[in-house]
């Protein structure tokens, strides 16, 4: 009886076995890496806005405080976006004819609000509250990154549940004195470990209660 398989079939079989293994491995690697990549999480991906607002210019170069525009951040769940009027407090005097700002002027004139595209968002069933994080010494840049280096704003962290929980389980590495939370490029002092330990008790932070589901989901 003649051979069913030629000699080269061994090579083909080996190739198929290894290729399958490699493809599986690749799929696993992609499966792990893709959901964590900026492509899916949006991290580092600048979003096109109706007005190419630059945090780099306003915060980094001009030194505006975060709260000038995001004025609900200390009192409300929502940090808030500036009303058109807030933009126009300066831009009625500066760059009054800049083409870039035409939509802002049009908004004020027509009464139709600007429609900004969301950069940072969590799903509807997540009840995130800005004010409590500010009060407990979690800085803006801890979650939003160094926006003063962003010409166009991009998401700095994935904001997925695992990322939130990392800090809710062990907030200490992310704390700083509450008066410093609005600072950018904050340099921790040398005795930061001691400060953070004392902050936990001074600010009455109870990490053991911070992973209860209803803290974020209601």
């Amino acid at each position, binding site marked *: 009886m003649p051979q069913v398989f030629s000699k080269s079939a061994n090579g083909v079989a080996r190739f198929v076995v290894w290729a399958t293994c490699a493809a599986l491995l690749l799929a696993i690697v992609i499966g792990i890496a893709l959901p964590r990549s900026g492509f899916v999480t949006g991290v580092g991906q600048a979003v096109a806005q109706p007005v190419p607002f630059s945090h780099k210019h306003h915060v980094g170069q001009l030194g505006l405080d975060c709260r000038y525009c995001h004025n609900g951040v200390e009192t409300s769940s929502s940090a808030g976006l500036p009303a*058109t009027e807030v933009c126009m407090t300066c831009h009625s005097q500066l760059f009054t004819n800049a083409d870039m700002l035409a939509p802002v002027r049009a908004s004020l004139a027509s009464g139709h609000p600007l429609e900004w595209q*969301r950069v940072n968002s969590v799903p509807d*069933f997540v009840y995130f509250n800005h004010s409590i994080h500010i*009060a407990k010494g979690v800085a803006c840049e801890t979650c939003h990154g160094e926006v003063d280096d962003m010409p166009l704003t991009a998401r700095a962290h994935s904001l997925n549940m695992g990322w939130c929980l990392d800090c809710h389980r062990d907030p200490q590495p992310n704390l700083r004195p509450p008066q410093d939370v609005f600072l950018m490029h904050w340099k921790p002092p040398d005795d930061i470990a001691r400060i953070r330990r004392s902050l936990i008790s001074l600010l009455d932070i109870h990490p053991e209660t911070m992973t209860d589901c209803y803290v974020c989901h*209601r």
Partner: protein
Amino acid sequence: MSAIADIRPIPTAGIAALREQLSSGHDMWRSLDEIARTAEFLRFVEAEFPALADRLPSRLDRRTMLKVMGASLSLAGLTACSKARSIVPYVRQPENVVPGKPRYYATTLSSDGFGIGAVVESHEGRPTKVEGNPDHPASRGATDAIMQAAVLTLFDPDRSRTPLKDGEPAAYGDFLGDMAALASRLAGSGGLGAAVLMEATTSPTAKVQVEALRAQYPRLKIFRHDPLATTAGAQASMALFGKALMPVYRFDRAETIFSLDADFLGEGPGRLAYARDFAARRRVRAPNDSMNRLYAVESTPTITGAAADHRLAMRPSEIEAVAAALDAVLGDQANSTPSIVDPAWMAALTQDLRAAGAKALVVPGSHQSAFVHACALAANAKLGSVGSTVEFIESPDEVRSDGDLAALCSAIADHSVDTVVVLGANPLHTAPSDLDVHNLFSELKLLLHFGLYRDETALHAHWHAPAAHELESWSDSRAYDGTASIVQPLIEPLFGGKTIHEILAALSGRFDADALALVRQTWKALDDTAWRKALRDGVVPDSASKPVPITMAPDLGGLQHHPVTANGFDIRFVADPWLRDGRYANASWLQELPRPLTKLVWGNAALMSPASAERLKLENGGIINIAQGTSNIDAPIWITPGHPDDTVTLSLGFGRKIGSVATLAHGYDAFRLRTSGANWVAAGATIVAREGKAEVITTQHHQAMEGRAIIRHTSLDGFRENPGFVREGVPRMPTESLYPDWNYDEEAWAMAIDLSACIGCMACVSACQSENNIATVGPDECARGHEMHWLRIDRYYSGPIDTPDLFFQPVPCMHCEKAPCEVVCPVNATVHTHDGLNAQVYNRCIGTRYCSQNCPYKVRRFNFLDHQSFDKDEAGPEQAVHNPNVTVRSRGVMEKCTYCVQRISARRIQAQIENRDIVDGEVVTACQQACPTRAITFGDQNKRAAKVVQEKSAPHNYALLEELNTRPRTTYLGKIRNSNPKLAQLGEKTDG
């Protein structure tokens, strides 16, 4: 398949058997079906959600199976696809508005024309929740179910959105054009031939405007149509005092109360305040505490009768005889006619009333005859309680009218009126059946209608103009005690509606009038500071009417007792507690809110006593024909223990033919049987049993906790002898558990519910629905036992079938420390939190329903369907009513009471920002906040001084089914009735 159609009927001979069974001491029962162990009852006991199989065809063929599977596969994994959307900030941010922080505004909601103060929560200009206004005398911080639903009716997509000319949409400008023509015609003729038909209102601004209209058009007629009006009180007052005065009761001063068919806890503009005062005198915590005592004689079961210590059911036509007997006894006259009330009962009552003296109070039912009112007034005068427990005030700002709807009809018939402007009322639906309003209105040259809905009258009118909702209007109103308050808008009119003030101004020829300016003009005595304060506080200070001193005419002012000799049945008309005259019929929250005593939803039934049903050989749902005069209607019956014999209770408000929600409901229209002379009570009706049955949907069998000591109760004397009566004869709570103890180092939230204070008014259930975005499911789903209310009020009977005692028990989630639900969840979707809540994680829930199966209290609810749309375009305007701080749940998810965890979180975050502890009383749950009687206490039981700890340390505090070792955080204070020991010796049950 309906829930009722497959019921094994109570054998008709069975009522006698049930009576037998109950006399041998079956303690607590929910319904006749329970005692009879009918299939209907057992179905709901054996499976909490019995009808899952109903959804599928009886034999699932392969094709259907594939279809069902395919659908579930294709739906799997479609969740959590959310795209980044846009954020839209303000152009000009209003001062003080911080997005994400709710704001609260005081306003006034109307109840039969009278004002009840409210504080409305608004999220970025969107009103979502009504609370009571603690500063307003008619609310005192409490609300009722109807007030809760105000936000729902505001966003009702069925509301009228455009003016209609001859039923076709038209422009508001055209409407004003025709109004201008009308105004100039009226100016020419002095108002000849024109009439305005108004609803009940106490608005001082409306009164001023109507008086101005009268001055401007001297021949204009003003009529008033208010289908729920009761005039007998004013008649009696005229006869006795020579002027129409209104009583204001002071239950806080009353020791002994006698209700002559008065439902003062459930009806009337002062009900919330009365309930608060009444229950405050029934808070017994220690053996030395005292209680008031309530005797009630009533012609239909009400929540007041359920709260009474001694209750007698009487035919409505017999109430006069009881009043006459009381008058005779108190007047020391020999009572010639044999009393229809047990002499011992009457003797005990009069002795108690006399002993209480100035602290006694006799309350007549507002719908009762002038004679009953006069007897009650005279009794109060003889007891010396006038000025103490009852005061009289001038009727607050009532618009002077030239007559009622009947007067208007006769004016149209004799052609003295050819133009009618209907303001708010819907006479084509609510007119008495002997008035041919439809034909008479057809003869009119011009019929204008102004109202919230395109209702029967609107569609018949030449012109209809949409009204603004209360939450969109500037107006003013007076409370039951005369206190004035301002109605301020929470939102611009959604559908361009106008207020009644703008329409009245247009009638007088002013088309640019602004409601705010008109109201401000009425209150010009208030300077700007005082005006802003009145707006902020929700009351105009010192505006309550002063009590008027009275002098009584002798001999009841000539009012006579008219014994009724008619054969046949008495009919007792009642307004549906939630839908009233049908004006709220399109509010699904109210349709689906179980009626306090019958637990009926999405429909009404003719209520009847077991003995009458037995005589007619009828069972629940059996259809009867009720004939009265020239009209008759068919209605299903509902056997109601404690109902007087030979009497049928018919409720108004159902049978609407218009409205997408209203038409879903079953039920009959009782207005078709109502005649002008007999608004509330009619005698001599003929009742004939018909073939067939109709679907009557009740929730009384749902979520039953069978045959255990669920309600524990005693008399006041019993409590004094044995304060720990709740521990008697019940299994002890085990002290050990298989499960490890939790540590509650921070707060430990807990609730105590005082069963002596609960009057079963259902305000808490409605408040919970509003606060927690609880879906309504509609009549068919309710019949399957799928209603979603997180909090239910169980109603129990105890004692004989004809004269049972009634008990109410609110049952929210118990938040067990050893929760049976937590250990059976395969996906950890129900978890214990550090402060002792059983949290439900919707996103983890895969819908096995094991938790519900394992819950001994049956407090979990499952979303069998997508009851609320997530598509913002499809969901319509009613999605705006949702509380933004609570997740809207989707299909396949279990849900339950969370102790209002969003409120706990909000207060905790605030306290943490301020770096302090949460203060006792800071966290208030929605049910607690709405409760008129403060029956619910909530707080942190780790704080020794907390109110909830004090409540729980009362000797009669007990947990439901504690023998199961679930260690509930919600506990109850046993029910204590202040029964008269003399009546107890006579053989009346005291322990119930």
